[in-house]
């Protein structure tokens, strides 16, 4: 970004190139605004969901094809304002040795999230450091930052193009993480035009290598309003490992409130 900026200043210095430069800046600004608009439409399509509970089966597959599975429940409470993220609790039920382990997150936009973990063997709730959002989530190919809410304010945007993906018209945008400890330099996101939902994300690491691809499908609309993917498939191109998430029993507006998302509730969830 800084290199691009310096070049533009040089151009501005040359009077003859001034108009061209303004034109270039305007189109870059257009692309940023258009990219933001596409992301915003997707973001606001979820407004008013209040709370959401879903069961999740996570299948981890390594390069040799051997598999292991985790089963968990995710409870999400919609953010109180645009300045904070959603609150969530993840409760594990399998593998059996981590049954009852629960993770509470109060997501924030550009700061580390507040996170507490409950360890049933010790009957103990621990506040944990969450600065390393790029670390893997329970040994999967999903990083914590892929898993937490995709808040609009966490990225800077750029519109790239419109194209069909599996026969669906999509807007393709590029987004750059603003969180300084993100594991990514950028992500390319395919958002379908009819429903404004994410269909595919290419993740580029800090060295701009194409690290992972996420495919989202089996979308269903719940309560006549909210779209949720039934299946997410993350492939790591460096390790050749994959993680598949299969959602079931998705429910909205179950009556959860702020009081259900405090550390004190973690000990008696299971």
């Amino acid at each position, binding site marked *: 970004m800084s290199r691009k900026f310096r070049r533009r200043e040089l151009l501005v210095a040359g009077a003859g190139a001034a108009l061209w430069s303004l034109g270039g800046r305007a189109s870059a600004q257009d692309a940023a605004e258009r990219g933001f608009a596409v992301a915003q439409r997707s973001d606001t399509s979820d407004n008013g969901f209040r709370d959401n509970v879903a069961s999740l089966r996570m299948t981890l597959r390594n390069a040799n094809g051997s598999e292991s599975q985790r089963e968990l429940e995710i409870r999400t409470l919609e953010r109180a304002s645009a300045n904070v993220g959603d609150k969530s609790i993840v409760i594990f039920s399998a593998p059996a*040795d*981590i049954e009852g382990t629960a993770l509470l997150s109060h997501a924030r936009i550009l700061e580390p999230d507040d996170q*507490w973990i409950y360890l049933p063997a010790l009957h103990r709730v621990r*506040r*944990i450091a969450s600065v390393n959002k790029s*670390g*893997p989530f329970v040994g999967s190919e999903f990083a914590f930052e892929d898993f937490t809410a995709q808040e609009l304010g966490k990225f800077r945007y750029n519109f790239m193009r419109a194209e069909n993906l599996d026969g669906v018209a999509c807007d393709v945008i590029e987004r750059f993480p603003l969180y300084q400890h993100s594991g990514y330099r950028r992500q390319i996101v395919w958002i379908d035009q009819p429903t404004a939902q994410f269909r595919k994300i290419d993740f580029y690491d800090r060295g701009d290598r194409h690290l992972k691809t996420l495919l989202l499908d089996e979308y269903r609309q719940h309560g006549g309003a909210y779209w949720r993917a039934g299946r997410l498939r993350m492939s790591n191109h460096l390790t050749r490992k994959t993680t598949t998430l299969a959602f079931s029993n998705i429910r909205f507006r179950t009556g959860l409130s702020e009081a259900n998302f405090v550390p004190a509730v973690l000990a008696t969830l299971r």
Partner: protein
Amino acid sequence: MRLSTLVPAGMLALAAGAASDACALALDLSGSVSIEGRAFPGEPQFEGQSEELQIALSAAPELVWESGNGLRIRLAPFARFDSVDDNRSHIDLRQGYALWRGDRWEFSIGADVLFWGVAESRHLVNIINQIDALEDVNEEAFLGQPMARVSLRRGAEQFSFIVMTGFRERAFGSLDGRLRGALVISDEAQYESEDEQWAPDIAFRYTISSGAFDLGLSAFHGTSREPRLIGAGSGTLTPFYDRISQASADLQWTKDAWLWKLEALVREGQGDVFAAAVAGFEWTSPGIAGGVADLGLLVEYLYDGRGAEAPFTALDDDVFIGSRLGFNDAQDTALLAGAVLDLEGGAQSFRLEFERRIGSSWTLEIAGQAFAHAEATSPEAAFEDDDFLSATLSRHF
């Protein structure tokens, strides 16, 4: 069979009766069975101590009923059979309670385990439950304590009031067992209160999470979980349980990759009033070994100002240094190392732990502990020849 197994049983029967009216009653059975082998390479220091490989079988099933309307019943008994140490073979009801709850309140009655505190090297402010001292020397297993508890919540604040009776005595190793002192400890405990284990205990705890801070304030009045050992002249030690009053605070400040921790208490009732504290930090690296594994480093300083009339503690002026390497792999492999160094007497204790899941329902845990440089006349010298290596294979269901 100890009393805690009997008291809640009646309560649970009552609660189960109430529950039968409730709508959909969900039942969940889980838990684990384990086999542990523990080897002591050194010659025993005291007459009667075993040189055999110590084998222990244990079972920890958990049964939870949940009604749709806020009632929850949990039964979590624990049983261990030990090949060497008779005192290590026992049955306990770790949890056996009925809990009623709303969004902002909870009421429970029965045996439960409550954990308070933030430090890793010593659970200083954690006072509700008796330590299962024979499970391991790391003081992280607890006996169920019969209690009635009310908790009220307001935002990120919680107030809890706890009334207890049916005190649980600390268990000590038998003549055959390793990791004991020179003198055998009597099973017949003595109490300051004439009501003995029936003297009621009360506790209050307030917790708040605010921004980067997690604070807990606690008060306790009742029977000390730590006994004094009296009557050394007679050749047998007798545990003596004083009545104490204690106030404590535990605080954690979480900032980026750093956790700053403090636990402190003031206690009255065991000789002069004394204070004790644990303070330190935990730092987690932002991804090593290709960004996948994470390494945690811990340093804690331990102080305890108690006098000779209080139960002995080795952790009066010590430093703990530890590290945890989490591989973040599909098998949740982790390696832990820790050392406690006594700054005055020079005694040292080292521990190494490895844990890993095997397949989807087994786990293997290997632990090694070594003791060194205790002064010959100090109580720490009792464990000097009891370095051990243990392996535990567990089947979870």
